[in-house]
């Protein structure tokens, strides 16, 4: 998870703590990219509204790296649906989850992307 907002990060951590998934968290795009390159996660949850290097730019870097080609890249955003769809497609994300996240469906949504 690449997420700068503490409340949003805590919520995702709380939801995923009840599963067997191992969650790693980076607070900004640059450290998130480094973390992804080191751990080669199965799925990257990417907040589009990051400070400094924003989510779209991070996505463009992730999608350029062969070693991360198997990682599902999921944008997490409060953008309007039409804009989110367009940005997600243009920047090579595999999908998106709307903010605020729905705690009842969040794990199911992630698993749907993992199972592809």
């Amino acid at each position, binding site marked *: 998870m690449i997420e700068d907002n503490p409340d949003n990060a805590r919520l995702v951590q709380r939801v995923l703590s009840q599963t067997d998934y191992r969650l790693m968290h980076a607070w900004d795009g640059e450290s998130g990219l480094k973390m992804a390159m080191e751990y080669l996660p199965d799925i990257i949850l990417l907040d589009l*509204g990051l*400070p400094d290097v924003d989510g779209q730019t991070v996505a463009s870097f992730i999608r350029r790296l062969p070693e991360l080609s198997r990682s599902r890249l999921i944008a997490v955003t*409060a953008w*309007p649906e039409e804009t989110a769809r367009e940005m997600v497609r*243009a920047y090579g994300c595999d999908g998106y989850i709307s903010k605020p996240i729905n705690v009842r469906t969040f794990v199911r949504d992630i698993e749907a992307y993992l199972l592809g």
Partner: protein
Amino acid sequence: MHEPGLPRSQRSPAGSLGTIASVGEFSSADSIELPQLTEIYNRSRDDYLIPMPMSVGRLRDYVNDYDIDLGASLVAHAEGRPAGLALLGLRGDRAWISRLGVLPEARKAGLGRIMVARLIERARASGCASVTIEVIEDNAPARALFSGFGFRETRQLLVTRRPPQPIDILDHGASVRVLGFHEAMARIERRSDHPSWVTDSRSMARAGNISAIEARWDDGRWGWLAYGSSAWLLSRILLGTEVGDPKAVGQALLQQLHWRHPLQDAVCENISAHDTHWPAMQAMGYMVSFVRVEMRLELGAQGSSSH
């Protein structure tokens, strides 16, 4: 310096804001350390559709690049805690209100309205003839707030992106030169458009890392493209067609830019919806992220605003 807000008789009743029962103290933003100012700003935007958070370093650059006067800018307080922020840029007889925001738990108490009123007065006291602001198009409450002060909507400004994608350079028959900072700024100073505050020549100069590409044809056509670049991103993209068709000249220049920087994401902020180069940008893959509405208030004689 702390200033009282509304008179007690006009303040919101105790408890009407949940945990914040009394509001209305204001201080200059330069009385707050930058890390705290950054936190206030980011928290005031947590629930925004397009939050645009900033790091401390980014806010520092923002203040520098856009001539934000922190002494004239405001932090609102409620119950002794920071509750909102509004920044004022000053350039000669022009002022710019930016990053107005109130923490969610402190809203609906008039803090935003008070800060806008105060900043207008500060702009007038600084000798400004006008105040501008850019509001996200979908933010109806903000547009209504500023309209209430007499701001008039002047134009739409597009915030655009272009993801990196392979590009084949086409031979347009032009001689192409890459220009350093000073030559780039000389081209920018020739511009004939009416830039927004963030794309103003002064903002470009303050940003510092500006280069340009110039293309000239044998038949006399010529144009230039100025831009900033980092390892991550191309930004501050400006196009100028001096002679020729803006779409053709613009497309040739953009192809040069993206051929030279094939791996970089690109952001072009605050291009007028009627900019003659927008068709060229669209042809090169630029898309609209969101739209801002520029609003402007003419300041009349002392004690009045021109509506």
